[in-house]
């Protein structure tokens, strides 16, 4: 099967549905927020045995934060705070954020909320999304609580869209249930690159992130890491390309005869 080169698709005057869809189906990559705006509601599934979920969520959020275009009236430097909501169960399993280990930009900005129940955590998340003085909101919920059903996630999506505050919901040890999140990731740790000066030491964090469902992107799998203050994604598997092809295949087939 031939691989369509998606980047070279022409932007013609008679943009048909196929072209539009193909352009929209451009694969996810870091820095996409500069064109498409921030990803407003993401879910990140992670294990409670590692901090990969929180690390990747912060990396994705900061990537969006850095790359998103500034509105006219906005300040040059964004000094807004970050709301970090944890249920008590999630805090017990995965620990609480540690200020000295947070990214340098965020150390003085985190406001932590410890909720006893999932209902309280959802309330805090929704109130946080309504707040104009927050850069983004991180939630950590352990397991699949009954309160976090499709209606609740839809509520969060709508609130995030209305107020433009991104939400990163970490699902600790959870099954992939029904959700209206725009991007759903599954993140695990990946072996890090050896540092320059001490090959024996653990290096900068790296994560294996699988985007298994997204509204406007093809699914795929990447190796994420942060280099020089920027998020870097390298392709994890070659057959991810094929997945893209298959995902847009129906639309592409209709377009092919016309160009031929």
């Amino acid at each position, binding site marked *: 099967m031939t691989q369509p080169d998606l980047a070279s698709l022409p932007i013609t005057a008679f943009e048909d549905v196929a072209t539009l869809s193909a352009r929209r189906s451009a694969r996810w990559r870091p820095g996409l927020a500069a064109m498409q705006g921030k990803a407003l509601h993401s879910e990140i599934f992670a294990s409670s*045995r*590692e*901090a*990969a979920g*929180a*690390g*990747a969520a*912060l*990396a994705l959020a900061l990537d969006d934060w850095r790359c998103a275009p500034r509105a006219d009236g906005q300040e040059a430097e964004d000094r807004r*705070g970050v*709301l970090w909501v944890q249920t008590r169960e999630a*805090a*017990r399993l*995965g*620990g*609480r*954020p*540690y*200020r*000295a*280990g*947070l990214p340098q930009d965020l150390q*003085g900005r*985190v*406001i*932590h*909320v*410890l*909720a*006893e129940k999932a209902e*309280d955590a959802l*309330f*805090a998340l929704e*109130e*946080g999304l*309504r*707040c*104009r*003085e*927050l850069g983004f909101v991180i939630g950590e919920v352990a397991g699949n609580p009954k309160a976090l059903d499709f209606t609740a996630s839809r509520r969060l999506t709508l609130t995030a869209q209305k*107020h*433009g*505050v991104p939400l990163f919901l970490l699902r600790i040890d959870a099954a992939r249930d029904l959700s209206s999140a725009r991007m759903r990731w599954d993140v*695990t*740790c*990946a*072996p*890090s690159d*050896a540092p320059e000066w*001490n090959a*024996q*030491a*653990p*290096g900068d*964090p*790296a994560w*294996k992130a699988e985007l298994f469902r997204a509204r406007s992107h093809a699914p795929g799998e990447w190796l994420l890491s942060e280099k020089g203050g920027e998020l870097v994604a390298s392709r994890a598997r070659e057959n991810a390309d094929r997945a893209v092809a298959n995902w847009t295949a129906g639309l592409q087939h209709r377009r092919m005869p016309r160009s031929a």
Partner: protein
Amino acid sequence: MNTGTADKSHPPPQARRILSIWLPAMAMDRWRLGAPERRQLDETPLVLIADTAHGPRIEAANRAGAAAGARAGMMLADARTLCPEIATAPSDPAGDLAFLEKLAVWAQRWGPWSAMDAPDGLLVDVTAVPHLFGGEEKLVADVAAAFARRELAVRCAIAPTAGAAWALSHYAASGTVLGACDDAEARLGELPVAALRLDQDVVTVLRRLGLKKLGELTTIGRDAIQRRFRNRKSPAANPLIRLDQLLGRVPEPLLPVVPQQMPLVQRRLLEPIRHRQLLDQVVSDLADDMARELEGRGEGARRLELGLWRVDGEVTVRRLELAAATREAAHIVRLFASKLDDIDAGFGIEMLRLRASWAEPLALDQGDIEAAAETHGIALSALVDRLAVRLGAQAVTRPVPFASHIPERAQRWQAPLDPEPASQGQLAFHKRPLKLLDKAERIAVLYATPDGYPQRFRWRGEVHEVSRVEGPERIAPEWWRERGATRLRDYYRIEDQRGRRYWIYRLGIVGDGRGGAPDWYLQGLSA
């Protein structure tokens, strides 16, 4: 000394005048005025007592009691041996202080501001005031007359400094006036050294040195006294500082009493309300009134108390703390709404009162700018309020650094909008984990390398194979905080075969004499 003589020859035109008022028998007078029938006890020996670990002690005695031999500070049992028929009443120091505070505000009739001189004195600044009373002599006569009308014993004096006025009111004839041009050193020289407002032990030291009068302090030379009291920094323990304050060579700040009134709004209802809908309406009316009241004062509320008076005499109070000063009625109503869910109206609520017991200045702002922003969302302080009301104030916090080497102690949680405490910048030599477990969890080491760190360990029922390691970073116990037997920690950053990064430590080392074989703990999860 030179400056002192210069002051005397050229008195500053705007020299301050301080009126010191001393109520020698304030506690006794206040007790006597408490009820009309207590006046009949004037002729019987009576003392006010406080309970101590060694039995009741006399705090104050009336004239008859003093004549019978009772003194303040004496044990009641000793006084009873002198005068068996002595009557007692409990003393009330907190009430005395509150009375003095009210008296300080009342004393502002003689000057623009007044300060309390606990336990039984007042200081009033009467600079440029005496001509309104016809001169300083008439002013002190007015003070004496006003206190006589209230049946309070009083002694007062006017002097250029608070120290001098205090000394004259306590140790000179009542009504003494020390003019701005008078030679203060000569006039005050005859007073005892206790007039310097010194602690009792310092007075004792001076008496043993043979220095009994103020004038004698200058005879032995300043250097000698300076050497003797060089370690005493507190004014009450150092006679030189007190002497300088008395003569006006060093300034002595006083804390004025400023009367404050809380914003308070209330509604009395014609018909007692029993339904939630009506209650919400009244609360929203009250919030509107409160917002108007606060706006008029240029303030915003930080703490609000809503009292609900029921027909059957029960009173329910709901308290609310706000993260930042606010006077938004809608916000206040919303926060109270969740607190009113469990109100029992009984036979009905007949009165509601809203009181801002803590208000902070909040400048007036233009309404429509904020209104435009409101369409985008709520402010951070409003968010913190809403979260704190539902989840409790301790659930919403912010991590702040704390001066400690121990990782779990180096971070504290404080209220989110409080200013961050000053701290030393962190040294970025060592990487710290992104998350710290609430309590370090013990891990079972299955195989340790000869270097000392674990090659294979079990944590929460799963075996981890260590592939990369960095360390140790040794953190010694903080001997100034912890017991001597606390063991040091050797921290390692590790990465296991699947790339999971942890922060583990060994508690103690072999042979440190502080316990058996060292244990291993997992404390942090790195990103």
